[in-house]
């Protein structure tokens, strides 16, 4: 481990670390909690759960979000579910298995102690959510229902139809609103954090912009929690919400918080393909569809026929061909790369040729035959069988099929779906220790904003788990380790020179942006950045491309600061100005992502370096040289960085290669 990185993992056996830690961590007495102020930036699962829980404990809390209400945060869009080691299905699940699956799924690039703690508290999350009124799916006996997800052999995923993220967020939001009503949380919606304020080496507050009036505000806190989500929008097109951004994390990075594994990005294999230059975002089709859909491309290049007109023997079910053992259910990173390979080789479908088919016809017939048998229709004709089969598929996936039809105007019951991979989640984020504290004392990062739990590839249904674990059950304990030493610190006046200076700097940046008065819109630059990132730092990367990308991004940054055009004025609602600030930060982050990807001379999880692959084209991990977290320090100047390494020590799991053949 680098000199400057102390992950503060407690001593003792893995399974006892968290229990012992909780019993020995310093506490803050209730009278002192009332005098301690905590700022929470972001109101998704991590932010809402942390804010409400800390307020319940007695701390004074302020919450900031850029949306018009805390309830809009992008956690709301998660579809599939949330994992928990409850073993309600009696199928052999345990805390250890969830821990093991998560480490393995992350391709052995996550920290053991954090992941084990995540698995330990996973069950409490379900209890807490049910108690706060989250209507999870249930069986007829009244007990909770589970389903399976990728990368596991047990059923441990809890869900609420295809809206699990929405229901969990509304649960946490309700608890948050309860505290707002009691006056223990002050809510600042339509506010964006533009900088952190450090005093004597500790984070003591933030500068925020009121997005309605345009005014800058100074806010003091004894501690600051960044719960600001991921940075997938660096690619312009992603499944993230339009407003999702890296600004809070990036500003913190530039003030001393190291950035961990920035190049670890998850590309989800089943999204609706891009339909044209107007496209503003991409829509996910749930992973569950791969249970019954078969993925293929035509065997002939540039086949002009419609999907349903291509006969069986002229179809290449390439996942089943390459990975006979797992077939269409290989993990996300593998499925995504295989789709890209086919399209790059000229076998893509649709007008753009950047798509593959996800076809339900085989299983429609299979289900139809089963239904016919059940209904004693011994001589059912093909039309009847297909009709019966479609009804079964509708029951299972009806809402997803409807969504597909709405967007593409094609009927997936009749023609195969066209899908293509899209940026979905970022495993990288601010480096944090076991306490979730960044390298800036008093500054924490929770949820997708930190790097800690998913290694190089996140398993499905684990993002919701991590957000709520961090907010409900981890930070309420670990923040005591820091705040117990801060009880004598009186609230610092926001007239302090550090606040004044930070506000001035933020104002200068905004002024500079407004005064460029160039010729091209913010979106113009964002799209160009996205194209560079997607082509050179997307599903497959190589040293030559990454070096080119770094040069291109640097040139783009220079051009942006000379030629961006932002209409309107400073002191009013100005959506273009908001976007400009975010894109400026994305451009700087994009460069760091490429630097990180270039540094990591191996392939692991979502990070695939073309130079490092096996003869069969699979990822070739290098555990001897790269079993570490790359934590980058911003050295100021012209976007320069220094690498620090946290070596990953596996004491409880034996590292092995992943194979799906």
């Amino acid at each position, binding site marked *: 481990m680098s000199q400057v990185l102390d992950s503060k993992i407690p001593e003792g056996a893995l399974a006892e670390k968290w229990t012992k830690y909780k019993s020995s961590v310093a506490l803050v007495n209730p009278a002192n909690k009332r005098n301690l102020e905590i700022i929470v930036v972001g109101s998704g699962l991590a932010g809402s759960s942390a804010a409400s829980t800390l307020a319940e404990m007695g701390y004074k809390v302020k919450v900031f979000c850029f949306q018009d209400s805390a309830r809009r945060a992008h956690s709301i*869009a998660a579809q599939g579910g949330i994992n928990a080691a*409850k073993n309600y299905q009696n199928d052999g699940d345990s805390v250890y298995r969830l821990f093991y699956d998560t480490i393995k799924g992350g391709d052995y690039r996550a920290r053991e102690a954090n992941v084990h703690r995540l698995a330990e508290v996973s069950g409490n999350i379900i209890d*807490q959510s049910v108690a706060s*009124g989250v209507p999870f799916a249930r069986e007829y006996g009244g007990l909770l229902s589970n389903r399976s997800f990728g990368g596991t052999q047990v059923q441990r995923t809890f869900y609420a139809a295809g809206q699990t993220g929405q229901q969990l967020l509304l649960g946490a939001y309700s608890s948050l609103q309860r505290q707002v009503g009691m006056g223990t949380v002050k809510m600042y919606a339509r506010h964006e954090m533009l900088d952190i304020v450090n005093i004597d080496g500790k984070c003591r507050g933030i500068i925020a912009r009121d997005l309605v009036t345009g005014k800058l505000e100074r806010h003091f806190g004894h501690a600051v929690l960044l719960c600001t989500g991921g940075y997938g929008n660096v690619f312009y097109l992603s499944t993230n919400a339009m407003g999702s951004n890296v600004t809070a994390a990036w500003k913190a990075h530039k003030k001393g918080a190291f950035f961990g594994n920035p190049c670890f990005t998850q590309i989800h294999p089943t999204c609706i393909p891009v339909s044209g230059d107007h496209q503003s*975002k991409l829509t996910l089709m749930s992973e569950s569809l791969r249970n019954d859909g078969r993925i293929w491309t035509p065997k002939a290049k540039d086949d002009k026929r419609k999907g349903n007109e291509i006969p069986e023997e002229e179809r290449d079910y390439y996942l089943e061909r390459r990975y006979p053992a797992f077939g269409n259910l290989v993990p996300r990173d593998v499925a995504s790369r295989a789709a890209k390979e086919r399209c790059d080789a000229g076998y893509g479908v649709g007008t753009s040729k950047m798509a593959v088919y996800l076809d339900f016809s085989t299983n429609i017939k299979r289900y139809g035959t089963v239904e016919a048998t059940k209904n004693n229709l011994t001589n059912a004709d093909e039309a009847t069988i297909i009709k019966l089969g479609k009804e079964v598929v509708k029951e299972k996936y009806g809402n997803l099929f409807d969504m597909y039809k709405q967007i593409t105007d094609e009927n997936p019951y009749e023609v195969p779906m066209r899908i293509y991979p899209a940026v979905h989640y970022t495993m990288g984020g601010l480096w944090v220790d076991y306490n979730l504290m960044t390298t800036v004392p008093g500054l924490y990062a929770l949820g997708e904003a930190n790097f800690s739990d998913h290694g190089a590839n996140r398993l499905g249904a684990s993002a919701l788990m991590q957000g709520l674990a961090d907010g409900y059950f981890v930070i309420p304990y670990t923040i005591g380790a820091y705040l117990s030493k801060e009880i004598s610190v009186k609230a610092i006046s926001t007239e302090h020179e550090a606040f004044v200076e930070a506000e001035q700097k933020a104002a200068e940046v905004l002024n500079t942006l407004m005064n460029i008065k160039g010729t091209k819109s913010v979106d113009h630059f964002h799209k160009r950045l996205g194209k560079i990132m997607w082509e050179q730092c997307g599903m497959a990367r190589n040293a030559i491309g990454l070096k080119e990308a770094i040069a291109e991004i640097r040139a783009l940054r220079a051009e942006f600061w000379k030629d961006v055009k932002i209409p309107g004025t400073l002191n009013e609602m100005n959506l273009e100005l908001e976007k400009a600030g975010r894109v400026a930060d994305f451009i700087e982050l994009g460069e760091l992502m490429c630097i990180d990807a270039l540094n990591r001379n191996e392939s692991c999880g979502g990070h695939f370096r073309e130079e490092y692959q096996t003869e069969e084209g699979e990822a070739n991990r290098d555990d001897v040289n790269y079993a570490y977290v790359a934590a980058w320090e911003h050295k100021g100047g012209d976007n320069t960085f220094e690498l620090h390494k946290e070596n990953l020590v596996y004491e409880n799991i034996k590292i092995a290669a992943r194979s799906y053949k």
Partner: protein
Amino acid sequence: MSEKTLNLTLKIWRQKNKETRGSFETYPISGISTDMSFLEMVDVLNEKLITDGKEPVAFDHDCREGICGMCSMYINGRPHGPKHGVTTCQLHMRSFKEGETIVIEPWRASAFPVLKDLVVDRSSFDRIMAAGGFISVNTGNAQDANSLPIGKDDADESFSSAACIGCGACVAACKNASAMLFVAAKVSQYALLPQGQPERSTRVLKMVAQMEQEGFGSCTNTGACEAECPKGISLSNIARLNREYISASASSK
């Protein structure tokens, strides 16, 4: 996919801020692909306005997949436009005809003041939630989730009510600008669950009191809210809200 392009005339409400009076501006727009979403069409307009040195149209949006509830827009006299059961971000231009004039306004309700152009302030919904839209359980107090069986029918019905995305289309659709469907959905979600029982009476009284204080109108059962709700929240929730309210009022101490 049958992509075509459309030439349209847009009449859009422009308003500088809360204090200023607004008015309609007319913008011709051409070459709009029928595959675009409605918001992407506005993106195209904004790009053009920026190029021409004009101010782009401010509008709320975020997830663009129909779940965050942030996008609004009153399109040709209907919240979220002409298609049933979708938000504006899920509305596609193939729902419009060549040469059509499309009128776009913000949500109209005194409890939703216009902040700029098509952006309104819906914080009144948050305040209604803060008044009672929760179950008072502190983190750490929960018992094992399966120690409390809940009948599937009740759980499913509760989920249907909980599907509300808080967009405010119900208020915008209502001639009285009533927030009854929004409040009813939350009251129903908890009234149907055992966890919601201890605060069942106080919750409905407090939420309704806050709703009235915010200046939302009364319900006259026209059903416009249900017809325009992008998530299909049923009018039966309002019937339940009325029952809950009467029962709570009768028994309140």
